[in-house]
């Protein structure tokens, strides 16, 4: 029998942490900092509104673009908070999470052989989605010495005449880095000079602790060449509902819509109902969750640094990204041994691409009690390692 699996599917690398997953299943006292989702439940007002809608039989498809009331509410909020104006009729699509939004956005802009620049460390699906669309993913490293922000000079080094688009994600998974308006300006110059399309995944936008989030599309003339992706999973603890949205100028939105209507038809109706209810009535609950993440961040990052893992203060999302360089172990070794010996699960930074090696992604979307216990276990683990000659601070190198 000839190979039943396509070459494209064969070429996609398997998950980098399958081993970890198998090991976790054998333990019953694991503290998992490997989870990329909130530990909170969806605000009850959203759940309750959804249950009422289900009782009323709101179980049909919605329009391909999504419920008009939800699209209008989203564009109203973007205009009010950021002065960013989109037409809900022609420039917005409700997607099945940001994952689908990203996929259709990439497919809407990529022809076979096109290069798509991916700022890394990044969420693990970006590069495979580019490959599936026939494109060639080109990583651009965001370095620790730049506080994991995208440096326009490093971006320039990877641009070629085949470059078609750039994917960025700030606040960032896995580093927690953000981009200020002036940081984005530098990137915008490169994007405009080289006629790139910008795909900006802003799903962690609400989780910005120091400074207010700046949407990429508000910078210079980027709006006309930017596809903004966002959703409800992180800010409203709605991962399982699968609701996101895509905003883009009509030409790009129309292209994405054609793909969306054939592969997805529409986002889940009940998820859209819950998302609208969350926007309308769960702002206080959302703010309380964000405040809780901030306290956890402070507690955990202070603990990591005290334990001997150098960690910059992440300014957004709910991830800390400490360096393990001082321990003499690689990120994969450290993560495997930490799990095996102390039952704390973290994700090796190298899983997230260039610039991620020698770091760990630790999600602090867990209770403060678990965070404090995780720090105690990490401290014990580091204490069990053989002494290193130089003090930790001197050994700390920016990831290259």
């Amino acid at each position, binding site marked *: 029998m000839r190979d039943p699996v396509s070459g494209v599917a064969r070429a996609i690398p398997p998950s980098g*942490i399958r081993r*970890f*997953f198998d090991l*976790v*299943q054998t333990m019953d006292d*694991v503290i*998992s900092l*490997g*989870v*990329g*989702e909130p*530990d909170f*439940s969806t605000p009850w007002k959203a759940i309750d509104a959804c249950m009422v809608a289900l009782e009323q039989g709101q179980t049909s498809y919605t329009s391909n673009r999504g419920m008009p009331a939800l699209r209008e509410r989203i564009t109203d909020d973007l205009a009010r908070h950021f002065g960013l104006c989109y037409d809900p009729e022609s420039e917005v699509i409700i997607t099945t999470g940001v994952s689908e939004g990203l996929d259709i956005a990439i497919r809407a802009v990529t022809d076979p052989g096109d290069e798509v620049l991916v700022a890394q460390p990044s*969420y*693990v*699906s970006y590069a495979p989605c580019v490959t599936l669309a026939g494109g060639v993913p080109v990583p651009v490293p965001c370095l620790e010495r730049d506080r994991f922000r995208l440096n326009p000079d490093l971006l320039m080094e990877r641009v070629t005449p085949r470059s078609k688009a750039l994917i960025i994600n700030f606040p960032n*998974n896995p580093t927690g880095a953000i981009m200020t308006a002036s940081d984005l300006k530098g990137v915008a110059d490169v994007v405009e000079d080289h006629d790139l399309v910008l795909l900006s995944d802003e799903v962690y936008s609400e989780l910005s602790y120091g400074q207010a989030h700046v949407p990429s599309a508000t910078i210079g003339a980027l709006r006309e060449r930017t596809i903004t992706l966002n959703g409800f999973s992180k800010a409203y603890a709605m991962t*399982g509902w699968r609701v996101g949205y895509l905003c883009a100028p009509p030409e790009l939105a129309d292209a994405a819509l054609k793909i969306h209507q054939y592969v997805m038809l529409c986002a889940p109706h009940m998820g859209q109902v819950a998302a609208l209810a969350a926007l309308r009535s769960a702002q206080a609950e959302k703010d309380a969750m964000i*405040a809780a993440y901030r*306290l*956890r961040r*402070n*507690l955990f990052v*202070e*603990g990591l640094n005290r334990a001997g893992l150098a960690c910059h203060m992440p300014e957004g999302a709910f991830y800390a990204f400490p360096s393990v360089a001082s321990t003499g172990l690689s990120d994969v070794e450290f993560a495997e041994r930490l799990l095996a010996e102390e039952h704390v*699960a973290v*994700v090796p930074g190298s899983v997230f691409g260039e610039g991620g090696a020698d770091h760990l992604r630790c999600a602090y979307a867990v209770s*403060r*009690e678990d965070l*404090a216990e995780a720090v105690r276990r990490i401290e014990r683990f580091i204490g069990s390692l053989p002494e290193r000659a130089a003090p930790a601070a001197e050994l700390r190198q920016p990831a290259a």
Partner: protein
Amino acid sequence: MVIMDATDTTLVQLLEENSRTPTVELAAMLELPAAEVEERIRTLQAGGVIRRFTAIVDRTRTDLGEVSAILELKVSPERDYGYDRLAERIARFDEVRSVRLITGTYDLHVLVTGRDMQAIARFVSEHIAPMERIRETATHIIMKSYKENGTLLLGRETGGERQPFSF
């Protein structure tokens, strides 16, 4: 009146959630030196904002047994004192956990606890009902509590199955 800034507000919330949180952890979360956290706690105690540090105990999970009841009281207010003197007399009983003046059909809302239902019945009939100025009482035995002090008491884990790893 104690003026609370945003940090005091958060500090009080953290202590309400867990009054045993170590000072170093409070300091890290609030981005303050530990000495300032201690000073703020002292000031909040001196101002009577933090009355005491206590534990929330669920006796239904023990073999101790305890029954609670809500009493609603109609009261004739007293010249010069209104409801205050009677409410204070009621509040002094150890069996009484809370006393509140409320709007509506009844005037006072009282939470009482006792060893068992008989103990509550005896306490109400011997000590509360005979008080002067109480015109009517309604006693509601609490059968089950679903939420106390902002904490859900559902007796089962809420939230579904989070995967140990996700990206």
